[in-house]
């Protein structure tokens, strides 16, 4: 589904991502872990087109997307969430979600001027989509609350819903459980499983190991921008290189 070939990103003298080759399979949960500053978010930024890689190739559904802009990549079916979700706090949750389906609509300025049939139909489609994804993430009851008033966990769910509203094939989740308590984390993990069961491919960055170990089909470990390990949760858990990266070499020896 998504193939990454020797991807490298340099910011001046700093190499944030170095020669990473990996592929994400359809319908799987792929996790990316690594210490802070390992280049995980940069890696996401490269895939989603927010940053241009220094070298390497990104192929999505057989299409080379390496040099595409973020909005073009999104239109092809790559959705993402951010560590912090910027919602318009003065509007309701529902209002915030309507724009999520905008990329699948065509209405432009002249449609607005003449209030065309296409525009009205597309507005309806966007509203329907917003209802649908809100229901999917289990927030229908919060649809008409102000975005400013919802909890951190609900914010995360709204971020998922926004990503889902774009009709993606793959969803990149950047710390979906960051700042959320353990019980709520379980709920979010359930939601991620539900997404995969509905045919989506998920790729996530997370620091909560118990969540990752229970959820991921495959884990890639980044350290200083390099891929140091890849495998199933069981393989990663017992990999000495990973333990060294996380805990320091004395622990690995012990």
């Amino acid at each position, binding site marked *: 589904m998504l193939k990454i070939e020797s991807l490298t990103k340099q910011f001046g003298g700093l190499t944030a991502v170095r020669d990473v080759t990996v592929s994400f399979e359809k319908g799987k949960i792929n996790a990316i872990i690594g210490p802070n500053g390992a280049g995980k978010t940069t890696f996401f930024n490269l895939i*989603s087109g*927010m940053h241009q890689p220094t070298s390497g190739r990104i192929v999505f559904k057989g299409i080379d997307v390496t040099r595409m*802009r*973020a*909005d073009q990549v*999104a*239109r092809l079916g790559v*959705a*993402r969430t*951010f560590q912090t*979700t*910027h*919602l*318009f706090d*003065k509007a309701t949750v529902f*209002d915030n979600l*309507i*724009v*999520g389906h*905008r*990329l699948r*609509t065509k*209405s*432009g*300025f002249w*449609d*607005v*001027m003449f*209030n065309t049939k296409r*525009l009205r139909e*597309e*507005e309806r489609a*966007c509203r329907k989509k917003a209802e649908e994804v809100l229901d999917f993430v289990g927030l229908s009851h919060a649809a*008409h*609350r*102000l975005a400013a*008033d919802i909890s951190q966990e609900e914010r995360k769910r709204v971020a998922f819903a*926004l*990503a889902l*509203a*774009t009709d993606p094939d793959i969803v990149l989740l950047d710390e979906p459980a960051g700042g959320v308590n353990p019980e709520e984390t379980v709920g979010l993990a359930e939601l991620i499983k539900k997404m995969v069961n509905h045919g989506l491919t998920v790729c996530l960055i997370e620091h909560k190991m118990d969540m990752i170990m229970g959820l991921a089909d495959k884990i890639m470990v980044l350290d200083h921008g390099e891929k140091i390990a890849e495998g199933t949760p069981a393989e990663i858990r017992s990999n000495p290189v990973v333990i060294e990266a996380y805990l320091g070499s004395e622990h690995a020896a012990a």
Partner: protein
Amino acid sequence: MKYLQGKAGWAILLALALLFPLVAGNNYQLYVMSLAFIFAIATAGMNLITGYTGQLNLGHAGFMAIGAYTVGILTVTYEWPFWGAFAMSGVVAGIIGFFVGIVSLRLKEHFFAIFTLCVGFIIYLIIEKWDSVTGGTVGIIGIPGPAPIGPIEFNSAVSQYYLVVFFLVVSLWLMHRIVNSLLGRTFVAIRNSDDLAQALGINLMRNKTLSFVLSTIYAGVAGGLYAGYVRFLGPDLAGTHYTFDMITFLLVGGIGTLLGPVAGSLLVAWVTQYLQFLADYRMLVFGPLLVLLVIFFPHGIVGFYYKKRMEREMKKAAAAAQANRAQAVNKEAGNNA
């Protein structure tokens, strides 16, 4: 407050604007009001790019001057009829706006603001120095007023006032369409977060440019009206202080709200009038007033109204939810008994 909502609210506001000439004591009051409305149209344009799309354009007055000078030059130098020249005011401002937009919108945040500040100043300098076309510091005098349309003439202060009201209503109606459509939602998404909007598949450059061009067309049309209303022009109109006046209108009225620009320009215009007797000292009163307003009404007057309305609705919704729950609990208790 219910009667202020929806179509009824709009009808009341429109009626107030239409009835104003009956209560106005003299033509001077009509003049102040008409000018405030003209600036409200320009400010509505600025509101689109700055309030809704989140890009602080500090060259906005320059585009108003471009619209005004288009009318001035075409009618005086080339002897075009007024309405033909007026139609060009929006077109010329929009075309120049497009080219300025595709360059300046490559920049973000402060850099965009600083760049457009420079653009505004360059427009001012061009108008001031290009004597042969713009009349330089002398400006353009003897611009004809709006020509009669059929039997309707625009000679009296009242008829000119109504003409301005007409354009204000059309401007606001179009703006209402834009900001409440998918297009408006797209602009607001960009204001909230560039990155998130782009991740949602929104083409930033295309949408920002569209918003910018529309805002400059508003400025241009307002400038065209200004030229036909005031009948003489100086390079001063492109000055940055007009841009900052418009920002003040936005802050006072409510940035990112449909009626904010109107409320702001009206209120500031009248407060300035009432403080006229203080001459140069009026800023000593005006300054603190503005500070108080920003402290106690950070979202402006219209923003304050929306906030209160939203809070009331939320409270109502919460109470309804509570009642529902209570009912459910009662039912259950009844079933158990």
